[in-house]
């Protein structure tokens, strides 16, 4: 009995190998970019390569994004691969803060250059890997509102779609980008960490006689320029300990904790989830520990490419297909 899996063709890269890998592990595969077909799928795989950008924003805001939310919300098995996993989170911190689907709380960040390859995992709160969470399938309680949001998105009614979807994302914390509310210069559009420190803003500029801001309110923080020069290694000093700086992108085979299994990664951005309990497997690179796989209820995401990870990858896809974890 072959299980039917729908691979979402969102134009985010080559799907052929994902398709072949799923067929290899016994799935009946359908590839579709049609929001209607995706919305009615019983099992969805959402692959993607690359980074957040205009293309991902279009998906998030469009009918396809609504269809993906509908599948997830309904409790059907869903696997996001690489960019497809990153898009489950709130938004990318860089690339001017392109939005994600906002199903899991967290952000996507670029690996900085110049990290020491052998660096110890840094002092940030460790991600606690968990295993074997029972899938908690919630009924189709929000199905009607999902349907409404899909219908609205299909009609191109952005406002209604936005209203419907913010209602759906558990905590409607999508900040209204480009709204006049945060017009102060220096306000951070990405809104990453804590709320903007009020005292830092207020102290230097006593407000009462503030002239109206000369230019358009700051809505988008320009992404920092990508620096392509890495610090030179002191070749002239033979006594200096040899160190090696990590490369970006993170390309190749890396082991995940706690299983120790190796998978093939290729990405420049990693996810920083807000809830440690969403993290299933962890990998580290240059001292940064990031989720190799995330899991929440019916939702599974992997940063690596199972379709390129040989035996281990096929095993992973097989497990997704059979719904067995732990």
């Amino acid at each position: 009995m072959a299980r039917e899996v729908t691979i979402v063709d969102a134009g985010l890269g080559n799907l052929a190998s994902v398709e072949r890998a799923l067929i290899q592990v016994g799935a009946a595969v359908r590839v579709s970019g049609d929001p209607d077909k995706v919305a009615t799928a019983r099992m969805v795989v959402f692959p993607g390569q690359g980074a957040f950008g205009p293309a991902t924003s279009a998906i998030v805001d469009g009918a396809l994004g609504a269809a993906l939310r509908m599948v997830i919300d309904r409790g059907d098995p869903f696997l996001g691969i690489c960019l497809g996993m990153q898009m489950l989170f709130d938004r990318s911190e860089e690339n001017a803060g392109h939005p994600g689907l906002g199903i899991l709380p967290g952000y996507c960040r670029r690996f900085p250059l110049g990290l020491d390859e052998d660096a110890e995992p840094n002092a940030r709160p460790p991600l606690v890997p968990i295993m074997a969470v029972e899938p908690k399938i919630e009924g189709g309680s929000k199905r009607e509102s999902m349907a409404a949001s899909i219908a609205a998105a299909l009609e191109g009614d952005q406002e209604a779609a936005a209203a419907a979807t913010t209602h759906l994302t558990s905590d409607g914390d999508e900040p209204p980008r480009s709204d006049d509310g945060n017009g102060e210069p220096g306000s951070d559009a990405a809104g990453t960490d804590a709320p903007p420190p009020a005292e830092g803003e207020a102290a230097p500029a006593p407000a009462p006689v503030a002239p109206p801001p000369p230019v358009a309110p700051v809505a988008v923080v320009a992404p920092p320029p990508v620096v392509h020069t890495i610090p030179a290694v002191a070749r002239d000093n033979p006594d200096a300990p040899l160190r090696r700086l990590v490369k970006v992108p993170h390309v190749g085979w890396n082991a995940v904790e706690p299983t120790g299994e190796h998978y093939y990664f290729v990405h420049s951005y990693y996810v920083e989830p807000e809830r440690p309990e969403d993290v299933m497997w962890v990998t580290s690179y240059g001292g940064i520990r990031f989720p190799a796989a995330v899991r929440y209820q019916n939702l599974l995401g992997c940063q690596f490419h199972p379709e390129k990870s040989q035996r281990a990858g096929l095993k992973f896809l097989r497990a997704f297909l059979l719904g067995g974890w732990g």
Partner: protein
Amino acid sequence: MLKRRIIPCLDIKNGRVVKGVHFAGLRDAGDPVEAARAYDLQGADEICLLDITATTEGRETFVEVVRRVSAQLFVPVTVGGGVRRDEDVRKLLGAGADKVAINSAAVANPPLVRRLAERYGSQAIVGAVDVRRLPARPGEREPLYEVVIHGGTRSTGLDVVSWCRQLADLGAGEILLTSMDRDGTRDGYDLWITREVARAVPIPVIASGGVGSLEHLREGLATGWGEADAALAASIFHFGLYSIAQAKRYLLDHDIPVRPPEPAHPALV
């Protein structure tokens, strides 16, 4: 920790695997699909296919080889050789390649690299750089290198390190660095230029050209030696000198982090 990759490379001519010395004097080494599958089963971290045919019919044959090979594998496949236009890249990616290496065309037309990286993503575009060591000049403490193109037949006068940096700036996701002087000689990688490039660019560097023993693989990857992120080799694997698993065990024994060899590979799942 990220592991160094071992990449067996198949030079393809008219649909067959061949291997030459200094890019010439080719010997037949078998069927590409068979060879690629064998490497996959041994636990190769990636497979590289290079088209060394120059003719139009040869190009079509190569795309077909890429299609047949990648249909069998669940590891990344890098392809290259004679890639000139956007159309070539599209065809190769469409045939199942994961990464396409651009060599002479990038030198002739650097903006092509940027355009391809924007269209297909940096992860799909590899900057292939063939280099040659220049004759030593009196008074020079360090060797000098230049970039060569068209299979090593034409020199460009480009400085290797700055060209590699430029490729990274243009959006290439990796550098495949081949030493023309060493290619096919089994004398080992040119460690000097490999290390210079590996330290100078922010993207991964694949060392290529000259492997004749497992120790050469170690040299290419070890910190303080070649410092490459991946080691590409052809002849030591082709002619059954060593298996991928032997190479990995050797590297693990010498403290090079690589993915452990696959267990006697059962059928994939």
